[in-house]
């Protein structure tokens, strides 16, 4: 196909090169510098998509990121991207695009039946029906869901990567149109560190689509000069293809740089697809321009009807016009430039102006260019059949509510409208800036901004529509002295006649023609009125009821029109209607860009112990515990987990085992008030702990509930080594810091996380000492290092801290060495242990062994609702201490009542049956739920060491201590009903002799 709509000359495209691309399976050509939208326009393709609700045929409305209609599925396979605005896609060779939301084809779409039935589908119709019968809702919904949605989400892994960058400019300028360029240049000359961002590939903004003059030269030459000068300033960063999308507290702003969008899938793998910039800016200048709003006239959504400014942009930036016979419909002077420029290119232009007169310059220019003017008139209908055929024009009444007289049919193949301009106040509003309504141009413009987000708005986004004022305001905001760039002072909008809804030959909303203010979601003026009639008066209600402004363009072209329509129908002012909140992002922001590199293995760092690699080499099976990888068990060939764990469990109790406990939380406490702090943190008394001694403690939260436990050791006079649970390490450190910083700032304690500074190896079993002795010349006998003792020794030539503590109930030594020696010492121990048939065991065996002893795991056997008393640990709660954290709560009526859940042991009736953890004990077994629950199994294992091998469990049961010896029922979710006997939770060595051996 040839580019029939391409003008013979003009545009910022490179005509020397031709690019080939595909749309809906057909091949077309374009040029570098085109967008997909301009290239399709050049090829005469006007039908680009279907609307969301009615599936009406839609074409381009805009030339920029405000486009609501022309959403396409870009590329296929792994590179596919739904809902992409054709106006924002730079053309590259081989580009592949498809239309969306249509079946079987864009031209013949079955969904158009919705359009025929649209009379029955007003705003909110779905709240009124699809209710009968109730069970069919899921069927209705299934159909609705399939009809809804637009494009298709990717189904293959994303081959691209994304990255984050940070910058802290003194001056961040958003938008590189005339005002923004003036601001950036001014800032650069004033010596500031400037960042200038713009969503377009070139600098210039509105200047790219116009024919203005600045400082006596063509605007494009002026832009080139500014670009060159900015490039020479070392402290200026210019980012094109970069959209500032979010403005957050304290001038924190987010922008996305589309690094490879213009290259397509063939872009180099070295480049990220998008780069997300995070700016913390000292000052911000918003120069985001203005967005034209369409006139809301009968069937204004037909393909081929654009915004007036868009037509001008297509002409000057891309050298293309949408047709040969153009109708321009306007209520202000700005569209005259479109008409004049198009006429100059040889297009037959009819200008329909709802005003009786326009500005002098505008009228003279139009007449000189040969534009046919129809003043005081309005478009009242559109003939569309596979393209625009004509528009109907009628005379508009003085009050703008009626059209009169004969219908004049104006043949045309394209049309455009201008209903005025909306300053792009989105970022200002995101920054909690207030808005003011300008009565002359009928627009919202920025007013005061929040003190936490200081910025200024300049140019069109400030409601200043003349080029000269934009340049001046930008220059002043940049902070330079010297004269600002200057341009001829022209009144670009003139006297605007507000005409929020253009009447037609039947009452609006009561006939076949539709007046759209919101294109993508198919919301019409009649929908707004219906919402009002039904009491959805708040603008927020109207928005939600009609879905105005909730499409992918977030109402860039529709919101102000909606507000105007509501104001005029209710007879109130626009500000009285109110505005909805502009929320980030300005344009949709790619998940990948937000996520950046923090994917897969970088999502959450994998924490590994110094011994991890040895474990991996020796066949360990790992489990995730928080961010840690912990060796769960070490299967020998042919062993499953059960077999491996039984072997490991038995070997520890009968000989010796070695366990990597490095993940245990460790906090180094120093200072003269540590003993005092420990007394407050733990329930038991710490005053008398001698240097070289360890003590076990429980920590409670404010409610008196156990929240962590561990052993703390006094390694020197004012120096303690605290251990916490693996999962609780950060929480406990935060807890300590919170109390020290907020309640006890006078206490002299330094708390430092040393979890990763120490490798911890636990030797457990009757022959543990023998293994240790093989590696040290220091005395580690029971006398020199008794149970709950601590000693610093030389082990395998390395300084080591040895704690005589045990989580298995066996003779045990927890050896801590600096992490860098961890693997070496581990290997030495493995070697020394060989003579004693030492087993290496993992967390699963650790769990079984401690359960055999009735030792709890905080977070498993207790869950934040258990007091020490509930755990049968009253012995660890000091009755003498004046205070400790949680003490107050222990005496509360519910916390101290009888019948609370209490920790007990359970033995299942069938010794081979391992009760499922999380199974509940019921007080009354019934045929079916509901059944009253009185507790649940917290830990459950097969123990090879109890009764020659049987299952054991820990549980918490209401009044459990008094139930010992009773049988209880556990109905399982799979229908099984099992019985178990309540017993003491200590299954092995109840006297506690072994640990002291």
């Amino acid at each position, binding site marked *: 196909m040839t580019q029939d709509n391409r003008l013979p000359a003009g545009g910022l495209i490179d005509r020397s090169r031709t690019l080939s691309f595909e749309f809906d399976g057909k091949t077309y050509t374009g040029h570098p510098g085109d967008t997909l939208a301009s290239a399709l326009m050049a090829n005469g393709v006007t039908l680009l998509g279907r609307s969301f609700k009615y599936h009406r045929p839609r074409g381009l409305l805009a030339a920029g990121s405000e486009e609501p209609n022309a959403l396409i599925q870009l590329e296929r396979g792994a590179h596919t991207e739904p809902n992409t605005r054709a106006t924002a896609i730079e053309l590259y060779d081989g580009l592949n695009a498809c239309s969306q939301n249509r079946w079987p084809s864009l031209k013949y779409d079955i969904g158009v039946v919705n359009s025929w039935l649209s009379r029955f589908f007003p705003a909110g119709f779905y709240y009124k029906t699809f209710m009968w019968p109730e069970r069919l809702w899921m069927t209705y919904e299934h159909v609705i869901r399939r009809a809804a949605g637009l494009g298709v989400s990717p189904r293959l892994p994303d081959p691209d990567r994304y990255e984050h960058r940070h910058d802290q400019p003194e001056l961040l300028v958003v938008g590189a149109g005339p005002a923004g360029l003036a601001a950036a240049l001014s800032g650069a000359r004033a010596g500031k560190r400037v960042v200038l961002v713009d969503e377009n590939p070139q600098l210039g903004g509105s200047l790219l689509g116009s024919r203005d003059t600045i400082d006596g030269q063509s605007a494009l030459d002026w832009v080139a000069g500014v670009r060159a000068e900015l490039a020479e300033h070392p402290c200026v960063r210019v980012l094109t293809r970069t959209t500032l999308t979010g403005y957050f507290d304290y001038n924190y702003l987010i922008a996305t740089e589309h690094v490879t969008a213009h290259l397509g899938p063939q872009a180099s793998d070295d480049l990220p697809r998008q780069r997300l910039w995070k700016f913390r800016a000292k000052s911000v200048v918003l120069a985001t321009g203005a967005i034209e709003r369409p006139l809301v006239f009968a069937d204004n959504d037909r393909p081929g009807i654009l915004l007036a400014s868009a037509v001008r942009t297509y002409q000057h930036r891309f050298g293309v016009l949408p047709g040969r016979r153009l109708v321009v419909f306007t209520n202000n002077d700005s569209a005259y430039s479109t008409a004049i420029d198009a006429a100059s290119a040889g297009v037959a232009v009819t200008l329909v102006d709802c005003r009786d007169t326009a500005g002098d310059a505008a009228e003279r220019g139009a007449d000189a260019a040969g534009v046919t003017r129809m003043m005081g008139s309005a478009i009242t209908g559109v003939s569309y059949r596979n393209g625009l055929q004509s528009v109907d024009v009628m005379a508009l009444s003085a009050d703008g509510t009626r059209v009169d007289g004969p219908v004049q049919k104006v043949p045309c193949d394209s049309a455009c409208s201008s209903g005025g301009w909306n300053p792009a106040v989105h970022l200002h509003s995101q920054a909690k800036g207030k808005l003011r309504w300008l009565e002359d141009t009928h627009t919202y413009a920025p007013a005061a901004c929040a003190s936490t987000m200081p910025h200024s708005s300049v140019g069109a986004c400030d409601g200043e529509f003349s080029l000269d004022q934009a340049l001046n305001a930008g220059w002043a905001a940049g902070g330079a002295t010297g004269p600002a760039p200057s341009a001829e002072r022209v009144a670009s909008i003139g006297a605007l006649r507000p005409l929020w809804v253009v009447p037609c030959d039947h009452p609006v909303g009561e006939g076949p023609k539709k007046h759209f203010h919101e294109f993508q979601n198919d919301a019409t003026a009649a929908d707004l009125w219906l919402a009002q009639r039904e009491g959805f008066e708040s603008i927020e209600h109207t928005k939600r009821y009609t879905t105005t402004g909730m499409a992918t363009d977030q109402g860039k072209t529709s919101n102000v029109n909606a507000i105007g329509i509501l104001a005029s129908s209710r007879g109130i002012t626009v500000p009285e209607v109110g505005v909805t909140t502009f929320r980030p992002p300005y344009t949709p922001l790619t998940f990948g860009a937000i996520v950046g590199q923090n*994917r897969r293995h970088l999502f959450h760092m994998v924490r590994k112990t110094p011994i991890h690699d040895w474990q991996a080499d020796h066949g360990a099976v790992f489990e995730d515990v928080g961010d840690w990888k912990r060796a769960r068990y070490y299967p020998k060939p042919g062993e499953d987990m059960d077999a491996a764990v039984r072997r490991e469990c038995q070997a520890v109790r009968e000989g010796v085992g070695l366990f990597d406990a490095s993940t245990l939380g460790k906090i180094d406490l120093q200072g003269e008030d540590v003993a005092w702090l420990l007394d407050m943190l733990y329930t038991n008394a710490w005053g008398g702990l001698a240097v070289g001694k360890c003590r076990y403690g429980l920590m409670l939260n404010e409610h008196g509930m156990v929240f962590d436990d561990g052993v703390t050791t006094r390694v020197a006079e004012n120096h303690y080594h605290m251990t916490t649970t693996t999962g609780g390490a950060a929480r406990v450190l935060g807890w300590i810091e919170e109390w020290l910083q907020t309640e006890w700032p006078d206490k002299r304690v330094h708390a430092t996380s040393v979890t990763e500074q120490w490798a911890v190896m636990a030797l457990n079993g009757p022959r543990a000492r023998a293994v240790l002795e093989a590696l040290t010349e220091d005395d580690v006998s029971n006398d020199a290092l008794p149970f709950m003792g601590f000693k610093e020794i030389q082990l395998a030539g390395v300084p080591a801290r040895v704690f005589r503590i045990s989580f298995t109930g066996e003779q045990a030594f927890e050896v801590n060495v600096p992490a860098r020696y961890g693997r070496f010492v581990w290997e030495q121990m493995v070697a020394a242990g060989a003579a004693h048939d030492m087993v290496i065991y993992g967390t699963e065996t650790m769990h079984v062994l401690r359960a055999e002893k009735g030792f709890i795991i905080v977070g498993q056997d207790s869950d934040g609702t258990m007091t020490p008393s509930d755990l049968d640990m009253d012995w660890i709660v000091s009755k003498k201490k004046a205070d400790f954290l949680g003490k107050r709560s222990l005496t509360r009526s519910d916390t101290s009542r009888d019948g609370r859940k209490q920790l007990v042991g359970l033995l299942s009736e069938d010794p081979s049956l391992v009760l499922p953890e999380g199974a509940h004990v019921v007080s009354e077994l019934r045929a079916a739920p509901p059944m009253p629950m009185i507790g649940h199994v917290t830990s459950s294992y097969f123990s090879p060491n109890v009764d020659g091998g049987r299952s054991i469990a820990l549980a918490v049961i209401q009044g459990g201590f008094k139930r010992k010896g009773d049988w209880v029922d556990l109905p399982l979710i799979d229908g099984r009903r099992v019985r178990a006997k309540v017993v003491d939770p200590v299954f092995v060595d109840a006297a506690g002799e072994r640990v002291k051996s």
Partner: protein
Amino acid sequence: MSRYSVFSLVRNAFSYHQNWQRAWRSPDPKREYDVVIVGGGGHGLATAYYLATECGITNVAVIEKGWLGGGNTGRNTTIVRSNYLWDESAALYGHAMQLWQGLSQALNYNVMYSPRGLLHLAHSVHDMQEIQRRGNAIYLNGIDSEFLSPEQVREMVPFMSMEGRYPVLGALLQKRGGTARHDAVAWGYARAADAAGVDIIQNCEVTGFDIQDGTVTGVQTSRGRIGAKTVGVVTAGHSSVMAEMAGFRMPLESFPLQALVSEPVKPVVDCVIMSNGVHAYISQSDKGELVIGASSDAYNSYTQRGSYDIIEDTLQAICEMYPLFTRMRMLRQWGGIVDVTVDRSPIISKTPVRNLYFNCGWGTGGFKCTPGSGHVFAHSLANGDMHAIAAPFSMDRFNSGALVDEGAASAVAH
């Protein structure tokens, strides 16, 4: 109230929808009501509806500072479920679940309650223990609950990654869990309450309480004094402010909670998926938008606005669950203010002021209980005594220690 139906829709189509009635009136406040509900969100409107339709108290006003449903009702991620651990919670949320069924028909308003199924993923042994315990409890409380193997999860959610940083080891499924259309819930209750005689008064801010001899007698508002025999305060994130006006402290902390949606796409996520391990949740709206949320901001605030880093964390988690979604785009993000109790369970309670009741503390998960909350609160207000299901949620529990600690058990974002 003219009834909505497909027939009324067709009939009105022929008069170009010119003759639809207002969904609710816009009356001036009367001098006095039997019950004044402060707060026109879902819970407040539901309370008024049940007062008028079930408790025979129709002289009721709902007073709303802004627009109906503009707080957390219109800002949540629309998830409905009742798979809670503790019996007290199961009774409350299970009660709501029963009311969700048939709610559209009862209100004559399609709230689009959609039991699409809700999955809680487990990524570690600890997660598995948690869902086993909770799933068994839910089962024994007579609520639907199933465990899924990784294979079953894969079948149910085909595009989700099973082998990420934290592989999926299993899941807890509640089939009746799903979503509902949040705005429609507020509007449906408002319309039905209005039809039953309730005055709904928007743009009316309560500025103080009239309290005589320890008994509330009315409220001061931006539209003058409104007398009331009983006042129910249902103001979510601003409940602590209201309590202060009434002269006592409410054990709440208010945090910003954010959510976001993607651009709409054709169906790709059929059920609701929650992961406490990876920490995010996702569903897809009928319109096609992916609806995504995670944890609240860490600091106290009354601004309906959160910080960007939460969005980043949330989407990292979502893209960990769904690596395919990195090319999807965030369309809109917003924040609300959630009122969080220390045990992550609500407060439905009498207060130190006679005849003044509070219903608050729903934290990050109030939407799902809208019908149940309104129902038990209405009965409590009507009888002057707390409904049996509401009784465990009295604010006395913070003195007695009888917490309903959903947070302790699972540390879940609701």
